């Protein structure tokens, strides 16, 4: 009988997930004795009754590497350690189904689990690994905020999309002499904002790592506008905050979703600028989930394929408890605990920040 690897995707989607799945399946097909199955919507496919598991062969994964999203579906909620259960009174409680799930996986004849997900997923993987499950992790964050790996797939695509948005906003802002504010993703790390601001040529960029002062922004805008003529592009990360305030967020009303919903900073900034006396014509654009959709750029497909192949090879070598990571130019496996120990935020002394300041960009400080 063939050995079985189970693949699943958890957390928010990002371009390149399908290329990872294809990489895993194609690598397994190079062996005689492995086959790959997929669990629908992260671990839910295993936990549900009846289970939702699909076979993944070369035919299933043919051509999926240039599709965004994930053919397995994903979820940002629940999981084996916090399975939501609705009580009779309508409230929700959460139960630990991890032991049951491990038994189920054994019963299904699963020899290795490859979990593709963000830091939450990697934490679940570590806990399952400690309970004896053969798990391998593949990192996934569109925000590039994991320090164990040089890059995560999806990130360059998001930067490209945000940059093209800046390209477009520049020409319309210039035609109408406007200030246009672009809100991009980035809860704790401003990588997408800073990178797209440099590539697109924005005048102001606000990131979570550097609290901003509206007075500084007004100065830049006034300098750029002469007799009502001029234009300014501001790129702002959703997690940016003023020096005297906090990030804009709201508690999610979705069951089991612990992440705060961010957003609204562009709108707030517009009002704050108005209140501080900025009389330029201003508009806002919130890029939202366009950053997660669509065809991954070649860079991300290549990185994702490398991750998929490496993850399968770790399974072949029985080298479990590790997450694959890109450490230029190599792809390596790092223990989960090490992998999730550090966030990768923008260092104010980094060359990227120096470059932004070097071309005269205002970072709000």
């Amino acid at each position, binding site marked *: 009988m063939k050995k079985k690897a189970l693949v699943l995707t958890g957390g928010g989607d990002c371009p390149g997930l399908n290329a990872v799945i*294809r*990489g895993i399946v*194609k*690598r397994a*097909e*190079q062996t005689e004795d492995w086959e790959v199955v997929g669990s629908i919507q992260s671990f839910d496919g295993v936990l549900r009754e009846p289970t939702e598991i699909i076979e993944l062969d070369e035919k299933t994964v*043919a*051509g999926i*590497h*240039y599709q965004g999203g994930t053919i397995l579906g994903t979820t940002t909620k629940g999981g084996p350690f916090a399975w939501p259960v609705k009580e009779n009174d309508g409230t929700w409680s959460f139960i630990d189904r991890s032991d049951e799930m491990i038994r189920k996986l054994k019963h299904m004849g699963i020899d290795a689990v490859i979990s593709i997900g963000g830091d939450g997923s990697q934490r679940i993987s570590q806990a399952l690994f400690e309970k004896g499950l053969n798990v391998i992790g593949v990192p996934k964050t569109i925000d590039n905020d994991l320090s164990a790996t*040089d890059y995560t797939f999806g990130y*360059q695509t998001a*930067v*490209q999309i*945000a*940059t*093209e948005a800046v*390209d477009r906003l*520049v020409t319309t802002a210039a035609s109408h002499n406007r200030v246009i504010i672009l809100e991009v993703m980035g809860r704790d790390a401003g990588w997408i904002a800073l*990178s*797209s601001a*440099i*590539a*697109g*040529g924005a005048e102001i960029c606000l990131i979570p790592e550097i609290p901003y002062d509206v007075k500084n922004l007004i100065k830049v805008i006034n300098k750029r506008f002469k007799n009502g003529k001029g234009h300014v592009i501001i790129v702002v990360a959703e997690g940016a905050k003023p020096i005297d305030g906090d990030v804009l967020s709201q508690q999610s009303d979705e069951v089991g979703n612990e992440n705060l919903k961010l957003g609204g900073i562009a709108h707030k900034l517009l009002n704050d600028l108005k209140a501080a006396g900025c009389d330029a014509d201003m508009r806002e654009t919130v890029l939202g989930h366009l950053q997660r959709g669509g065809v991954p*750029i*070649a*860079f991300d*497909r*290549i990185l994702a*394929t*490398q991750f998929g*192949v*490496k993850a*399968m*090879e770790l399974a072949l070598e029985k080298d479990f408890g590790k997450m694959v990571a890109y450490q*230029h*130019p*190599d*792809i390596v496996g790092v223990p989960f605990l090490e992998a999730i120990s550090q966030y990768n935020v923008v260092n104010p002394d*980094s*060359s*990227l920040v*120096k*470059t932004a300041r*070097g*071309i*005269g960009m205002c970072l709000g400080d």
Partner: protein
Amino acid sequence: MKQRILIVNSGGDCPGMNAVIRAIVKRANQESNWEIIGSINGFDGILNEPLEIVALDEKKVEGIHFQGGTILTTNNKRDPFNYPLKQADGSIIYKDLTDKLIYNLKVFNFDAIIHIGGNESHKISLKLAQKGVNIVGIPKTINNDLSVTDYTFGFQTAAQVATEAIDKLVTTANSHNRVLILEVMGKNAGWIALNSAIGGGADVCLIPEIPFDMNSVLKKLRSRYSKDGRGFANIVVAEGASFKDENGKLTSGNIARKIAAKLKEVNFKADIRETILGHLQRGGTPLAFDRILATELGVKAFELVSEKKFGTMAIHKNFELTDINLEDVINKYNKVDLSHNLIRTAKGVGISFGD
């Protein structure tokens, strides 16, 4: 008086050159005592009479970062040490014009040159530095074939263009059950071919570093046309790839066409077509990745000049911008190492290198 920097770009163009120029100018404008001047068409601008140079201010460079090419135009046949001079009878003689170059730099008050160019260009940079010219280099190669820097701008855009070409060729190959051969750039290094083969999902990838065996390619193609196969195939070949013929001799040049001819010669049954991507790989809007890298290098190069660190090149290593002496740049080619993870990945997804 303001200090003056002359920007010279030479070698083939690639997307991102304008972003470098813009970054140098914008960085210089953060100071009060610098002027940036561009030399038209490589070293021509500073050697011609009258000079062909252009003052670069913020207005001139506004918005150029998303234009491909170079506003200064470029040329890869203008070595000041071996400069072509057209004679009255139409013949060309080559002369060393470096003394004139140094004289012109002095007379027109240039304090330094920032030279944007590839491997060959920086051999010139080094020789000029050795003659006392204040010069700082910026690496530029679409082929990513310089080992002292982690990435070169233009390369990711080229890999993207080649990948999108494969995306398109896959659907038409599939519809017509064809073998489609895509020839991409890469005389000595197969990075574009390797990256686009993985990115686009080709079945065969042929690179200069691995001389291929036609029989091995045939074996892969036959498996694609077998009962379990998908009935079409995509081959990506770097222009510098070569194969051994019956006598064990290496054959190269016009490689896509030669592969197609060879497949027909052995009566491979499928319909075979070739596409040569050519200069599409050098044109158009640079990807964000390349614009950012180019901007970083432009800023760094200016700072090297203002710190008087001449005879160096601005590079990107381990996520930091740093510099390296020009002596240490020369002949450090970055070829695809056969133990590189991309080779392992490609083999892992079943791509054949014809070896």
